[in-house]
């Protein structure tokens, strides 16, 4: 593996609420190579989105990054002063969100919003800014882009709005884009279009992407690498194909088993019993233990990371290989 463009190590983001400390992200580590697409999968509440916000330094109080490191092209982001972090956001690392209706400002035209995003990092003449905006809108597949710059968000469909948001995120050709379920709120057909387009754009521009989703099926068609999150930590990660074929963590196995495409037609889908644990009152040890079929006394300790052939997992009783982690 060449030098990663983004390197996250032992990232911990906690929320200090009245009811107690919520460890939304608790010891997340991964590397992202230039141009690589990584899928970050997990149930809602598993800390995927907070991980995304942490990368950009956009965690709102009462949350804050308490430990760990985020290195973007060699620059440590967690200790960077606000002004310098701001200068990197949108330029080197940007983010798109789930709900395109909520992300764009209804009171400003698309052109004005793109101009604001350009002005944040570059001094361009009005004409040059318009040219750049038009070019990007065209790239993300918006017809008659030049005319659409004068339109307001409500004049676009949901899918088109998301394309506009993607265009804004791509304005400065960032090295990394964090995409937080950007297609979840859209129709399935449009979802597929945007998915493919994003993959092509990432390929053309060499932008690396973290695709956050609760939908393993969507992510696996796109990402070359997967990270499975549970209760604020990554419980398993590795190349997509390997993980799908041969999952080690029982949670990953459960996710795969619940995919319709992985099951013979006519047989009932399996489901993971129980619900996501509250991050407020997490017992020590493996967070998945209460829902896992293989739980033993050992699981009361936190399993360490086991690494093998470019993949890793955190479990004492991994699936498949029948090999127990030696005590």
């Amino acid at each position, binding site marked *: 593996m060449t030098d990663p463009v983004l390197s996250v190590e032992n990232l911990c983001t906690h929320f200090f609420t009245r009811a107690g400390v919520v460890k939304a992200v608790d010891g997340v580590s991964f590397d992202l190579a230039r141009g690589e697409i990584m899928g970050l999968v997990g149930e809602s509440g598993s800390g995927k989105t907070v991980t995304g916000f942490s990368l950009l330094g956009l965690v709102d109080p009462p949350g804050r990054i308490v430990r760990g490191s985020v290195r973007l092209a060699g620059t440590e982001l967690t200790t960077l002063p606000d002004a310098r972090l701001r200068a990197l956001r949108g330029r080197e690392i940007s*983010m798109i969100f789930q709900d395109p209706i909520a992300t764009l400002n209804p009171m400003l035209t698309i052109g004005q919003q793109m101009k604001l995003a350009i002005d944040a990092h570059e001094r361009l003449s009005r004409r040059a800014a318009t040219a750049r905006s038009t070019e990007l809108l065209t790239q993300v597949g918006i017809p008659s882009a030049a005319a659409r710059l004068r339109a*307001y968000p409500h004049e676009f469909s949901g899918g088109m709005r998301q394309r506009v948001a993607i265009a804004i995120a791509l304005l400065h050709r960032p090295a990394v884009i964090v995409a937080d379920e950007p297609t979840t709120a859209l129709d399935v057909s449009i979802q597929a279009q945007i998915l493919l387009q994003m993959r092509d754009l990432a390929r053309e521009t060499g932008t690396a992407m973290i695709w956050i989703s609760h939908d393993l099926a969507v992510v696996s068609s796109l990402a070359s690498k997967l990270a499975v999150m549970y209760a604020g930590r990554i419980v398993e990660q590795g190349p997509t194909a390997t993980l799908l074929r041969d999952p080690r963590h029982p949670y990953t196995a459960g996710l795969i088993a619940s995919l319709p495409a992985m099951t013979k037609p006519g047989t009932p889908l399996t489901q993971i019993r129980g619900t996501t644990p509250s991050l407020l009152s997490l017992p020590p040890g493996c967070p998945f233990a209460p829902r896992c079929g293989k739980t033993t006394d050992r699981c009361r300790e936190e399993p360490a990371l086991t690494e093998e052939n470019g993949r890793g997992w955190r479990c004492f009783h991994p699936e498949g290989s029948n090999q127990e982690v030696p005590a």
Partner: protein
Amino acid sequence: MLGFVIQRFIQAVGVMAVMSVIVFCGVYAIGNPIDIVIPPEATQDIREDAIRRLGLDQPLYRQYFIFMSNLLQGDLGRSFVYNIPVLDLIGGRLPATLELVLISVISATFIGVTLGIYAGYRPESWLARTIMAVSVLGFSVPSFWVGLILILTFAVNLGWLPAGGRGDTVMIAGIEWSFPTLNGLSHILLPAINLALFKLAMMIRLARAGTREIMLTDTIKFARAAGLSEATILRRHLLKLISIPIITVFGLELGSTLAFAVVTETIFSWPGVGKLIIDSIAVLDRPVMVAYLILVAFLFVTINFVIDLVFALIDPRVRNGVSA
């Protein structure tokens, strides 16, 4: 857009018509005004003559039609007490009230929105807490009490400012104004503060609540993710998004401040329409009461109409007929 304007205009006229009936019926049900204009020892002839002259012998609906047709010709009747046309009476008093109200509401809005945005942007800071504490006071302390304390402090104890009256005025465009002269300004200062305080508290709360809500939205998160500076986010995004509730309330408050001027004008002996209406209620001077209420209703409807138009101009969703 034109359809929208016409629709709103018809609505405004309709509301106006309903209001005129309500006000007319309501006010004409009070007591018998003839006892006030005619001395009790007057003869029956003089009495009946006066009743005829004032049109009080007509049935109520006739009185309303006379009233309406006169109203449309700009004739609102004569004051029972002053025996001059009501329109002249009110017209002479209105500029004083308008001057007071405009100065109060405009300054309250600018100061209040600024403070409120700050308090909403940094809700945990001590300054924000102080602003909010002051606004709770401004919100809950009755305005007549504030007026009293202002007089006690600045007029009675310190002797810095006059306790009442309008002071020196200057004629501009045929209307007298207090604010251009130093003496006039010193007279308007206390009543303006008195009248503005409640609005100020309201604007602070409104701007703070709006700011807090907007700052948590994905719009702001997305703008931050695009690397916009906080100053730009506040100036371009927040201010634009917050303007809709602010303008709505500004309009509503303009109307209600006009009504609240009643209290301030009474305390500070400010010679506006508010003081006039209190005096008129006390002596049941019906034409003045009716005219004042119609006037307030008219100003209300006009302001609402203008606000609707302003909305159409600033909110693209309204402009294009999309319900927001």
